[in-house]
């Protein structure tokens, strides 16, 4: 592992991010990454956060047209309420803050505490939960579906609405709408190694793959003998389409989990597009790359987001962040 000691990986990465991105204000000690021109007068601010290890999510999405601030926690561990309260205070222009929260027990609890504390300080806070992972059987008895690749669509599209000056209620409604239209399914070809443990989180022999994985090295629901890229695309796209029956065009995210080369991801995308074509699902836009990762896990995920004209316009709107840039 390319680290100094496990205890300083997050702080080290933030120092490096600060050096590479003068357009961001990086508070290494308090672990808050803020766009330099915040608070932006007259606009709602999006704040997200979560455990580290998913880079470029979330700090890589801070900038005009997307997040106003991000709060990185320890590796795979939700940030603490103090970070979110600090971030909210730094970015609030008086028009309110939307917390974008991936649906994990820790993230939900910490953001819930933070929302209360920020409101005590006079910041208007709304929250949206992202829960797009179809591999988790949703039920009222469990923590529910996980937030994975859909987070990128929520942050980009709701961020564009905020940048246009939409009020908090509208930005929140758009974020919920995007989440409701997103579904994801992930596959691992190898486990990941957390700095704290130093060895793979689960044991996946070569020649086998794990279906329905999350983004924290938690094992998936099923293990199978290795399949081809085309077979994996059939399985992943069908798992998503079983849950999302798009009536119109979709946005596609073919996402790498951290250790899968872009060469393989593009090849996989060709198969994903083939399957979508065979199922009669038109594609409006496609993004390929490692955006919502799980440290050094090998594998990929597919996220589909059912678009309409308004969401497509907001998706195409300019964005300028460390990891996602277009239209500017």
């Amino acid at each position, binding site marked *: 592992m390319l680290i100094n000691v*496990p205890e300083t990986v997050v702080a080290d990465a933030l120092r490096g991010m600060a050096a590479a991105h003068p357009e961001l204000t990086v508070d290494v000690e308090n672990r808050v990454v803020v766009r330099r021109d915040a608070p932006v007068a007259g606009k709602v601010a999006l704040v997200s956060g979560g*455990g580290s290890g998913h880079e470029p999510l979330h700090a890589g999405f801070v900038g005009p047209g997307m997040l106003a601030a991000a709060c990185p*926690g*320890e*590796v*795979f*561990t*939700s*940030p*603490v*309420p*103090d970070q979110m309260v600090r971030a909210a205070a730094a970015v609030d222009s008086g028009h309110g803050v939307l917390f974008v929260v991936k649906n*994990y*027990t*820790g993230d939900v*609890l*910490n953001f819930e*505490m933070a929302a209360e504390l920020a409101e005590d300080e006079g910041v208007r806070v709304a929250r949206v939960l992202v829960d797009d992972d179809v*591999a*988790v*059987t949703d039920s009222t*008895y*469990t*923590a529910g579906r*996980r937030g994975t690749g859909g987070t990128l669509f929520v942050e980009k599209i709701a961020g564009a609405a905020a940048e246009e000056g939409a009020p908090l209620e509208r930005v929140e409604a758009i974020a919920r709408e995007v989440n409701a239209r997103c579904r994801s399914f992930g596959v691992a070809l190898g486990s990941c190694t*957390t700095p*704290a*443990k130093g060895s793979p*989180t*689960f044991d996946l022999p070569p020649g086998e793959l794990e279906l329905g994985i*999350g983004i*924290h*090295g*938690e*094992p998936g*629901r099923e293990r199978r003998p290795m399949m081809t890229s085309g077979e994996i695309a059939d399985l992943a796209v069908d798992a998503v389409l079983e849950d999302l029956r798009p009536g119109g065009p979709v946005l596609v995210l073919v996402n790498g989990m951290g250790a899968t080369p872009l060469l393989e991801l593009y090849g996989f995308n060709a198969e994903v597009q083939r399957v979508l074509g065979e199922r009669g699902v038109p594609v409006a836009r496609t993004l390929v790359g490692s955006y919502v990762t799980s440290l050094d896990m090998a594998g990929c995920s597919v996220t589909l987001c059912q678009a309409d004209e308004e969401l497509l316009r907001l998706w195409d709107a300019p964005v300028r962040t460390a990891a996602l840039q277009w239209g500017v």
Partner: protein
Amino acid sequence: MLDADFFRRWMTGMAAAVDREADRLTELDSAIGDADHGANLRRGFAAVVKALEEEPSGTPGSLLVLAGRQLISTVGGASGPLYGTLLRRAGKALGDAAEVAPVQLAEALRVGVAAVAQLGGAKAGDKTMLDALEPAVEALAESLGESFAAAADAADQGALATVPMRARKGRAGYLGERSVGHQDPGAASAALLVATLAAARGAR
């Protein structure tokens, strides 16, 4: 009666226990979670000990509230808010007396554990820390706060009883049937919290 020093001994003992057992907790967490429970609690309870050292005065109640706040501010994940809420609510329930009776502590812990159940939306049998905490506070209450050893035994047995359970909450819940056969790491650390409580009383 239990004075402020008793609560300092408890927290210092817990920090040492978590430090000693961090690898085991992380190992349990890597089987059905995300392999960080030991490191997170080690960071949290180290911060608790530091904060208590910087607070030379303080009552049993105020020290537990301070410890809970430290956990919320330093641990993150689900365990930060959950353990933080346990200690903070128990501390509030103790009020500002300089000494508390064991039976008062038993009642305060019951309040704290109920707050954990409410915050996490979990109940006994879900394969969580509650499976160790609930039998422990029941055992302590039954003995009117006298038998800390019984509470520690109940917590140990409760933690072991999570092995055959199917997880319904937290990250292990995503595994469904595959969580069966592994001890819940939260229940294991909760048993340490009760064991160190008993040790602070000299009952273990």
